[in-house]
């Protein structure tokens, strides 16, 4: 066993894990890509209704969440630099901030969804079916599915970051073997990237 672990150590290839992560990101992009196709087709078919429905969404909360994600993307990006400069404490601090911002994002999302549900707007609800047009039903269906899937990715991203932070703390992720932290960063930026498109498509277009 000892021998085996040793050979694996020798096979460590930062570039391989980087392109592995990129390829995985491609699949994630196309996963959301499928949803963006659905969104664009239905938007094309129901322009007026999408307009009306988007008014229901709170641009302020959306904008706050956008700012939060952008800042957290920066903190995790800086943490890869601090790791290479061998500032372990600062790296952990920045990762902590990233995680906290991610959680604040989720809390915001929780209140946003909660407010919608209080107004009787959720997939399959009676209020949605009776008081809204078909296009608006599609809009809210997509709104819940896309932001929900995005929130799921935030949760996964947070777990990966915490895992990476733990490895940084133990020292197995360090300035010579930074691939895990960099991949966690790439994943987090992906989450950011998707939000950059979700925000204007749902909150701004009205």
């Amino acid at each position, binding site marked *: 066993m000892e021998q085996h672990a040793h050979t694996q150590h020798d096979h460590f290839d930062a570039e391989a894990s980087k392109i592995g992560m990129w390829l995985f990101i491609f699949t994630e992009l196309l996963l959301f890509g499928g949803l963006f196709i659905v969104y664009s087709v239905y938007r094309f078919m129901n322009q007026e209704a999408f307009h009306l429905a988007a008014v229901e969404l709170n641009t302020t909360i959306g904008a706050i969440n956008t700012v939060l994600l952008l800042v957290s993307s920066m903190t995790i990006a800086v943490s890869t630099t601090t790791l290479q400069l061998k500032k372990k404490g600062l790296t952990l601090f920045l990762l902590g901030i990233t995680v906290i911002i991610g959680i604040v994002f989720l809390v915001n999302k929780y209140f946003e969804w909660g407010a919608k549900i209080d107004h009787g707007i959720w997939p399959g609800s009676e209020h949605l079916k009776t008081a809204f047009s078909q296009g608006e039903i599609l809009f809210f*269906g997509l709104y819940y*599915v896309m932001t929900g899937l995005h929130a799921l990715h935030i949760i996964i991203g947070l777990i990966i970051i915490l895992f990476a932070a733990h490895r940084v703390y133990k020292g197995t992720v360090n300035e010579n073997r930074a691939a895990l932290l960099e991949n966690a960063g790439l994943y987090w930026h992906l989450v950011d990237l998707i939000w950059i498109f979700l925000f204007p498509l749902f909150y701004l277009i009205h």
Partner: protein
Amino acid sequence: MLAALFFGNGAPETGWTFYAPYSFKTGTNLLPAVFGAFVLGFSSILTGLNFLVTIHRMRCSGMKWTKLPLFVWTLYGTAWIQLLATPVVGITLVLIALERIFGVGVFDPALGGDPILYQHLFWIYSHPAVYIMILPAMGAISEIIPTFAQKQVFGYKAIIASTMEIAFVGYLVWGHHMFTAGMSGTAQYYFSLLTFIVAIPSAIKVFNWISTMYKGSINVQTPLYWAASFIFVFMIGGLSGLVLGSLATDVHVHDTAFVVAHFHYIVFGGTGFAFMAAIHYWFPKIYGRMYDKGWANAGWLVFFIGFLALYTPLFYLGMMGMPRRYYDYMKEFHGGNILSTFGSWILATGLVIIIVNLVKSARHGAPAEMNPWHSKTLEWKVSSPPSVENFDEIPEIAENDGPYNYK
């Protein structure tokens, strides 16, 4: 997915396509089936990812991109399709599941959805999926033919280019499954055009294989029989595909037995024959034993005759208008169906001969040499069966070495 068959309110009755809106209206046990398909998709993505990273980063020294065996190149193309197409069907299945569980309106026409959009998303994956099946098959054939012709493969770079072109254009032709589903006319023209374009690289490969054999010193062995019959059925299957790809004729034969014949000529005749060719080619390497060549050839002959008898009548029946997916047929289709049924028995006999021969030989066959076919690719430079670490020293490829450098 199997669980869906046995538990709950009966097996899913949507067929394998899970077409909306029926897929979220049916009372049957659809969710486990969708979940199974999703998990399968995920494993397919990870396989593709693994292959891509391996091919990019773990080539031995001197193994340039232009020295990779063609089989590896086809795996490379396949892996890209797996990576880029599978997530689209993944999200589509998730949407169906959400629609069933929470009543989210996405594809339900009653809530404003468009069922044809489901078909688009479904075929964006499921059309490339058939290229996932056929590309490695083409790769195996591209290995076998130069080996048994003992000749440099004709047009190495053309084969690579056609592989990548199939992978790329094949990604964009999904709509030809939907010609009669209610798409706009413009979309139909484009999909028809793209479908014709994807036929070109397949034809390039056929020309390359045949030209490789031309003036080669041909060593007639079981894998070559399989490979040659592969080219034969693949050509018939491919040409019948053009009939389906052009709009006017497709409307006539859509959803008839003609489609069944075309599909089986490509996927069973193509992939299946190449699979058999590949098994008979790498068998001595895998087990270190040689199979009984007489029985193997007999199995091939019976199988081939059975195959032709089984599927050729379906072309005729489809042209006459016999629809697919019915267990019963009208009187005038009787002759063709009887012939087809006989064919299926012959084919099954051939398959039994092949399997029995291979299983017996894997245990008791004569020990095989290291390189029984005198091939030049690397896997034949290790013992049969290969040892655990494959190479004691990582091999180096010199300037003049290559996967197909025969004299």
